């Protein structure tokens, strides 16, 4: 076995698995093609490299996240502001969720206040 082969976790953190699975599921569903995904991802990677980003490939899943967001925006399925707002809501929901309970979007206090919780 060569270096870093044995015992390497497939994903370093759960969110990496989540973004990967989401990109695969959306291709399986035909929301975008494998080639569209490769082009979008390649553009983010090239952009980050041109901006002097890290050189070791460890930022790969961050680029996946950006590529997916930009692809969904290009497809008219998301907006930057919408994703921003939803991410902020998730962050608040996490803070408001007691330890050991699943983090649900409904736990966001602002969402509750706005009467959006079920």
């Amino acid at each position, binding site marked *: *076995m*060569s270096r*870093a*082969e044995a015992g*390497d976790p*497939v*994903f370093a953190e759960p*969110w990496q*698995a*989540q*973004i*990967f*699975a*989401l990109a*695969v*599921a*959306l*291709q*399986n*569903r035909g*929301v975008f*093609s*494998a*080639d569209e*995904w*490769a*082009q979008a*991802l*390649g553009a983010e*990677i090239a952009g980050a*490299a041109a901006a002097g980003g890290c*050189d*070791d*490939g*460890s930022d*790969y899943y*961050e680029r996946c*996240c950006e590529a*997916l*967001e930009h692809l*969904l925006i290009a497809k008219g*399925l*998301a907006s930057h502001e*919408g*994703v921003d707002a*939803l*991410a*902020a*809501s*998730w*962050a608040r929901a*996490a*803070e*408001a*969720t*007691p*330890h*050991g309970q699943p*983090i649900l*979007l409904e736990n966001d206090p602002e969402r509750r206040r706005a009467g959006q919780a079920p």
Partner: protein
Amino acid sequence: MSGHDHHHDHDNHFTPIEARVRALESLMVAKGYVDPAALDAIVETYETKIGPRNGARVVAKAWSDPDYAQRLKADGTAAVAELGYGGRGGEHIVACFNTPEEHNLIVCTLCSCYPWPVLGLPPVWYKSPPYRSRAVLDPRGVLADFGVTLPEGQRIRVWDSTAETRFIVVPLRPAGTQGWSEEALAAIVSRDAMIGTALPSAEARR
């Protein structure tokens, strides 16, 4: 603090990237494009079922069965499907057979295209800018970094993967492996040997 030691301290905090991924996921779930159970199934598949052991079985079979090797050469996708491997990232698999005259090396210069059904997900270095550029410009230097020195006169052919076509290297069967079972052969075929950045050897057998 709940005092339950099986709970992590950061359970109730999302980093910006964690929150963003949740946002994208929940948006697509809300729009009905993805099912959370399908996402879990994809993660489980890549964490437990798909990996370079699949490719090693393909290589071992090609070493053991000349007819299979011919089929693998002629139609990689169909030949790996014989062993039950296929699907996303493996729609068109091309097997690149090393020969005494030519060594094969795979890369994706654009991003990280890789033959998932047979090799799993790529290692971090495969996705790094230095590997993606140097594999093309200086493949011999890249191999030297991996501790691989090819015999003089053996050419290196670099294959640039795409979303449509993905490659797996079939290394030369090492000396000293006559009579080995397919399982024993598969055990000495490393992931890197199927990328082209390592060579199998009979000594690797444990």
